[in-house]
Structures are given as structure tokens and as C-alpha cells.
């Protein structure tokens, strides 16, 4: 079974905890790193980690470098890394803005963060579609 190397960027500690728990239990993703904002992510990337993630799942609203900044920056510095944006907002404009900026796709967060199972399944399907 295909597994994907993943980095998670989410400023809310609790959210991030439940999110990564769901990814781990699915066994479809290998979590290389968890970060609270874009600054932490890029710092880690520039520090030449042993392995680069295939995809980055990023929240949009974060202090410091937010999700949009990550999309903009990685498009230039790490064009091979696919960025998937996520947010509680399901406003169409938000999704479109992310796609326009260069995100592979946008997935709305589940209603409550203890229900990330289906979110993980959806991201897996998308990852398979885009990355093979």
C-alpha cells in the first residue's frame, strides 16, 4: 500500500494533536513533522531534513507565516512538494484563492476535531490522484 510522507502545519495545539492521531492510525501517511506556523515549517525545510515531505497539509489562518504564505513560498522554493490547504471555512472564495495561489487542493476541516477519520481518507484519495 502506498504511503505518503506528510508535514502538518496547524497552530492550534489541540487540533494538531487530533489531526496527527487520525493520520497515524490510518497508517497511510508517514508524518515527518508537525509545525505551528509557516515560519517553523520553512525553518525545518531549510535545515535539510533527511527526507522531504511529498505533501504539506497546512491550515490557513496562523500567526506569522500563514497558509497562503506557505503556498506562495513553497511554489518557488520547493515546487515538488504538493501543498494541501485546510480550514474550517467552507467559503468558496477561500478555496478558490488557495487553488489560484498554487495549492493542489483544499479540504474543509471536520465539524469537530475528534472526527478526522473521513478527512484523512479524503486526503489519501486526493494524494493518490495527484501524486500517484
Amino acid at each position, binding site marked *: 500500500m502506498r504511503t505518503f510522507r506528510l508535514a502538518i502545519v496547524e*497552530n*492550534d495545539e*489541540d*487540533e494538531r494533536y*487530533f489531526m496527527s492521531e487520525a493520520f497515524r492510525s490510518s497508517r497511510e501517511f508517514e508524518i515527518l513533522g508537525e509545525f*505551528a*506556523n509557516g515560519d517553523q515549517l520553512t525553518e525545518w525545510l531549510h535545515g535539510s531534513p533527511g527526507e522531504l515531505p511529498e505533501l504539506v497539509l497546512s491550515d*490557513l*489562518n496562523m*500567526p*506569522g507565516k*500563514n497558509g497562503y504564505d506557505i503556498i506562495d513560498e513553497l511554489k518557488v522554493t520547493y515546487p515538488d512538494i504538493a501543498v494541501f490547504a485546510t*480550514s*474550517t*471555512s*467552507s*467559503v468558496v*472564495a*477561500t478555496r478558490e484563492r488557495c487553488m489560484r495561489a498554487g495549492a493542489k487542493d483544499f479540504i474543509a*476541516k471536520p*465539524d*469537530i*476535531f*475528534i*472526527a478526522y477519520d473521513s478527512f484523512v481518507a479524503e486526503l489519501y484519495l486526493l494524494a493518490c490522484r495527484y501524486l500517484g
Partner: protein
Amino acid sequence: MHLNSALIFRNLTEGIILLDETGRITTCNAAASAITGYEETEIEAKPFYTIGDGQDDPIKYRYELDQVQKKKKFVVEGWKLRKDHTRYWAETSYSLLFDDAERFAGYCVLLRDITDQKKKQLDLLESEERYRLMVEAIRDYSIFMLDPEGHVLTWNDGGTFIHGYTENEIVGKHFSVFYPATDQLDEKPKEKLQVARDAGSYREEGWRVKKDGSLFWASVVLTALFNERNVLIGYSKVTRDLTHRLKDEEVLRQSEARYRSLVEQVGDYGIFMLDTKGRIVSWNEGARRIKGYSAEDVIGKYFSIFYPEEDILNGKPAWELKVARSSGKYEEEGWRLRKDGSRFWANIVITSVYDTEGRLSGFSKVTRDLTERKMSEQALQESSDKYRQLAEELSVTNSELSSVNRELEQFTAIVSHDLKEPVRTVRSFLHLMDQQLDQQKFDLLKPSIGKGILAAQRMHELIDNLLHYSQLSKIGLQRQKLKVDEVIGEAIQNLNDAVEQSGAEIRVESEVQFIYGDRIQLVQLFQNLLANALKFTNGLTPEVKVKSWMENGSVRFVVEDNGIGISPENLEKIFEIFRRLHFVSQYPGNGVGLAVCKKVVERHRGRIWAESAQNRGACFHIMLPKI
């Protein structure tokens, strides 16, 4: 002294030569010698012809003497040669001489040098001949003589050409043949001769008849000729065919008439002529309609009557003519007066008019009443101005609406995200607690409840801030004259706790004393900027400077700190609502402060921006209009 015949003979001033019966010279007097140049002794006993014309023509001489014999007296004229071989025109009068016994004794020859007389006569002849030839050769004029009764005496080429008769057809005929039958019946030819005789000459133009019966339009001058005794000897008649001229004139007259009626009937343009002095000499319908004057009103008046008083005082009418005279044309638009004193906006063109010899004969003036056009142009302009203004207002409203719309969108995004987030957190923990209860993990409940309460607390703050922010756009701006020191002082006062806690030093160096604006909002502006300056430090005691000065008619404020500063890529982002550069745990905040600052400044039609150098703190600049 006894006068005998010999003495008389010698002293006579007429040249006399006496010949014997055979024609030989017997003697001559001194006067004869003076004429011929020969002394008596030189020619004595020589035949008379030796002092003749140098041809020694005895036959002609014999003939002359024979003629004397027959007629007793014979006079001949002819060239003779003097002794010096010069010529003279001689009048030679021969007469017979008889002795006491009445026997033929010889000839007496009276010799006169009449060269001068002859020359005059010849000159006269020559000039008469030239004149005759000239008259005869003239073709454009028929020139001929009539006798006192009116019969044709002479004829010239012009006569043949104009009347159609040759000389031998017409000489001797009465000149009435040139007149149409009706004129003949009225005895016009006779009348005309009478007039010419009485007045010396008679001139007229009229129809005449050619030989072929066709009519032509003739200009005739009939002049009575009197001799030195004042006796009428006849008439000269000079006739010219003016049919072509008449035709040309007729065409010209018709064309002029057409043109005049055209000009007179033009209703939309005032077209009239001025003489060189600017007096009106013609007037048309258009001029009447535009200016209200009839032709009788204005003909002969100066055209300045159409000008407003100030133009007349400025000498404008005369100046316009001067321009037209020097450059051929003057054109302008301006106010003119109608007869009733009302104004109209005129387009006028004054053009110099020259006669065929290039002399200025006057001016034409064309006037158009553009009042209606001007009015409609102005109305159009006004309505277009109005529409432009409306469009501008609409565009302003539109951009205001768009910005409100953007704010609304932003607001929606914020509500949907930032507000949803804590709700979601509360919900998530409630669900988690439900699970924990089911699983009877009571010890895990407490932390979950704590996190839920924190999330609810955060939501409360967010809603407060959001309301505060949105109030900024809603509430009407209260513009008051404010003391800068008081505004900044109030902001510092509100931050009293933070200032004391941080031990900050805030220096205010304000060159500007007053500003106009909303007190509450401007206090909020400085309060937020100062709060940030106190908050974003890296352990150092905050040092804050607030300065103000006038710059290009605007007031510039600068709030400068010695804090952590802002990296270049974030200098603009910091003004976005809910944008935070740092985690709450590090620098607490809700991402609303600078968004509020920006909104306040924009509501005061100003500008705010941040500058920051590495590790040199942040510097916020504000430009506000003075009023």
C-alpha cells in the same frame, strides 16, 4: 530820282527774266539771280531751259512757250535746279511781251520760289492721306462722311464689316438705310441730323439694320462738320457694333440679378455690403431676420450700430475693417446687438472687396446668429458636466460600496473562520467529554472542560473586537479641533498600567498643535500604536518617541519604538485584520489593533505605513490632512 522802267525792273522783289522771241534769256533782275543763283551775265543768250530742272528738255520748253502763245499767260509748277544744284519748287508764270508797235517781242517770265508753300501743302496732303488710310482700314468702327442732306460720301472697311455694304453700294445713298423701318417712319434719321447740327454732335445706342436685314446694337456718334465760314459741309458718323457687349452685359446683368436675389433671399445668413468707410450699402433678408433692421433702417448707416457700446468705445468696428483691409479677411465670434437692443452671439466674416483694378471698393460682411447653437452647446456642456459629476459621484459611491463589500466579504470570512474556530473547539471538547464519560475516563474530563472554557473566552473577545472594528465604519466621524498633546496624552493615560509595568519612557515632540478629527478614534489610533510599542519588546525597557510636524500641508506623525521590529515582508500584512505575526503565548493579541489604526486613518482621509530596520525597532508613519 526819276523812276523809269529799268529801275523798277531792277528793284522788283519778284524774280523776272526776260526772253527774246526764240526763248533765249535776254536779261534778269537781281531777285531772279537770288532765286537761281546765276548772275545775269552767266545766263544771257542761253535758252531758258538751262536754268530749268537740269534735264535740258527743249521739247517740254517749246510746249510751254506754245501754250503761252495760245493762252497769253501760262503758269507751271515744278522742280528747278539752282546753280549750286540744290532743288527748289518753282512757280513759273509766262506772259507775252509786245513792243510799242504791238509786235511780239518776247516773253516775260515771273519766277517764284514756292518750295516752303509746296512743302506745307505736301505735308498736309500726306497727313490727310494717312488719316484717310487709317480711317479706311479701321474695322471695329464704321466711320464715314455724310453730306449735309445725309447722303453717304465716304466709306471704310469698318462700314463694310459692320453694315455689310461695300463702298460702291453705299456711297451716294441716304444714311437712313441703316435704320429699322419703324425709325424711318418716325423720321428719326432726319431728327438726328437736326440734333447733331444744333448741338454739334449726337450720341446714342440703338438698333440698326445691316444690309442682310439683321439687327445689331449700335453705338453711334454723329458729328456736324462746319467749314471755316461756319457753313455745314456734312457730318461724320462713327458706328460701333455693341451686340456682343450687350449680350455680355445682359448675361452679366442676369447673373447679377440672380445672385442679388439669391443673396437677398438667404434667410439664415445676414449678408450685406459695406463701402470702404464701413457704411452699409446693401442688406438682405437674413440680415433683416437676424438683426431686426429693415433695409431702409440701415442703408447708409455705419455698421458699428450692431456692436455693444464697449466694443464701439474700444474702436473695435474700425479695427475689424483695418484687419480686413490689411489681410483681406476678418473673422470672429462675439456678441452683437439687434434693433430691439437684445444680444445675439454672432459669427462674422468681413471680406475686402476689390474692383477689377485691384482697388478696395468695400467689404462684404456675413453674419450668422449662433445664439441657439451656443445655448444648446452650453446646455449640452452643462448637462454633460452634470452627468460627469453624477458619474463621478456614482463612481465614488461605487468604490465606497465596493470597499464596503470587500469589508463585508472579509467580515464574512472572519466570522466563518475566526469565530467558528472557538465554537468548533468548544463543540469538539464537549463531544470528547461525552466520549470520555461513556468510557468513564473521568480524570480526563477536567482538562477538556478547561480548554472548552478558554475557547469560549476567546470567542467572547473576538466578538467584542469585531464589533469594535465594525463600529469604526458605522459611526459618523465627529470632526473637532483637537489639541495634539491632549489626544496623545489621553492615549498614554489609557495605557497607564502597561506603561508603569514596563517602565517605558514615552517622549512626545509635537510641532503641530492642533488637528481636526474624531477625538475618540484618534485617541484609539495612538493608544493602539503605543500599546504595540510597549508590547513587542525583547526584554529591553521600551523607549517610545511620538513626533509630529507639518509636511506639504499635511500633518505627519511618527511613532517610533526600540522593540523587535517587523521583517520587510510583513510591513503591509500587519494592517490586515486578525493577522498575527506571533503566537498568543509569546505576544498576546487578537490581530485587530493595527487594522483599527488603518481604518481610523483612512476615515480621516490619511495614510499609515510602517518602516523598520533590522533590530532597530518599528516606526509607524501617519499622514493626516490638516483640515
